[in-house]
C-alpha cells in the first residue's frame, strides 16, 4: 500500500514538473503581456483610419479600423513601445497613417506653409523695425532742419522788407 502511494505521489510530482516546464516553454514562445483598451486607444489616437477622412483610429467604427486596433494591441503585447508601433505602421502603410497627406503636392504644401508664413512674419517684423529705426533717426534730423526753416522765414521777411523799402523809395 505504502509503495503504491509512493508511486502515485511520484507520478503527481513528475506530471506537475512536466506541466510547469511546458508552461514556461509556452510563455517563452509567446511572451505576450495583456494590453488594456486604454493603452490601445492612446496609440490609436495618433493614427488615422485607412479609409475615412480625418478620423483617428480610436473613434473610427469601420472594420478596417477594428483590424488596425487589433494590430496595435498585438504589437503592444509583443513589447513594442507606442512610438515603435507608430513607426511600424508608418513603415507598412506610409505617412498617411499619421495624417500626412499622401498627395506629394499637398504634402509639400503642408510642410512648407508653416515655414513660409514664419519667414513672412519675420521679414515683416524686420521691415517694421527698420522703418521705426529710420523714423527715429529722421526725427533729430527734422529738428536740425528747423533752423533752415527759420532761415527761410528770415529770408522771406528780408525779401518783404526789401520790397517794402523799394516800394517806399519809388513813392
Amino acid at each position, binding site marked *: 500500500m505504502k509503495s503504491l502511494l509512493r508511486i502515485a505521489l511520484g507520478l503527481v510530482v513528475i506530471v506537475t514538473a512536466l506541466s510547469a516546464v511546458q508552461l514556461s516553454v509556452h510563455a517563452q514562445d509567446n511572451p505576450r503581456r495583456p494590453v488594456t483598451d486604454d493603452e490601445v486607444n492612446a496609440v490609436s489616437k495618433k493614427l488615422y483610419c*485607412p*479609409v475615412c477622412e480625418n478620423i483617428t483610429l480610436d473613434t473610427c467604427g*469601420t*472594420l*478596417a479600423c*477594428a*483590424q*488596425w486596433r487589433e*494590430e496595435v494591441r*498585438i504589437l503592444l503585447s509583443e513589447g513594442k513601445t507606442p512610438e515603435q508601433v507608430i513607426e511600424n505602421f508608418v*513603415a*507598412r*502603410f*506610409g*505617412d*498617411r497613417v499619421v495624417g500626412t497627406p*499622401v*498627395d*506629394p*503636392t*499637398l504634402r*509639400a*504644401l503642408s510642410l*512648407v*506653409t508653416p515655414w*513660409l508664413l514664419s*519667414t*513672412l512674419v519675420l*521679414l*515683416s517684423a524686420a*521691415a517694421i523695425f*527698420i*522703418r521705426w529705426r*529710420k*523714423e527715429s533717426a*529722421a526725427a533729430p*534730423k*527734422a529738428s536740425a*532742419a528747423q533752423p*533752415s526753416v527759420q*532761415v*527761410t522765414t528770415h*529770408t522771406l521777411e528780408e525779401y518783404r522788407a526789401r520790397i517794402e523799402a523799394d516800394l517806399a523809395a519809388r513813392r
Partner: protein
Amino acid sequence: MTEWHVAEDILTDQSPAKRSVNFVTVLAAVILAGMALIFGLGLRHQQQTQPTEGMAPLFTLKTLDGQEIALESLRGKVVVLNFWASWCAPCRDEAAELEAAWQQYKDKGVVFLGVAYTDTERNAQAYLKEFGITYPNGLDYKTKISALYRIEGVPETFIIDRNGHISEFAMAPLKRTQLSAMIERALAKGTQP
C-alpha cells in the same frame, strides 16, 4: 532753393520706409502666389482619377510567399490587377469569382495579381486561406501601388493588355462572367508589332 531743401528732406525721410514696405508687399505677394500655385496643383492632382487608358503604371509586387513580380516582366500577357482588403465586404463577394476566373484563364496567357490595400499580413493571409485564392497576392507597402493607380476604394480591378496598356477598369465587385468578358476583350487586342 529753400523749397528744394524741404522736398529733399521729405524724400530722404520717407523713401527707405516706402521701399521696405514695398519689399514686404512684393514678398508677401510672391509667397501667396507660390502657395496658391502649389495649392492649385494639389487640387488638380487630387481631382485626377484612376487611369482608364494608356500605359499602366509600373510597380513591383512582393507577394505574401516572398516572390517579387514586376509588372514590366509580364509584358505579352494580360494582367488582371485586383485591389482588395480583408476588411472589405464587397471584396469577399468577388473573391471566389476571381479565383474561378483565374482557374479558367491561368493557362491562356493571363496573370492575376492581387494587391491587399492597407491590410495586415495576418488578416490578408487568413482571407486568402478562407477563399482558397491561389494566384499571387501581396501587400501594398506604404500604399505605393494604390497611389500609382489612384484607387478610391476597394475592390477595384484593372485589366492590362499584352502591351502594358490599361484595357479596362472596374470600380465594383465583379462577377465571373463580367471578368471573363473583360479578359476576352483584352486578349482579342493581341500585341502590337
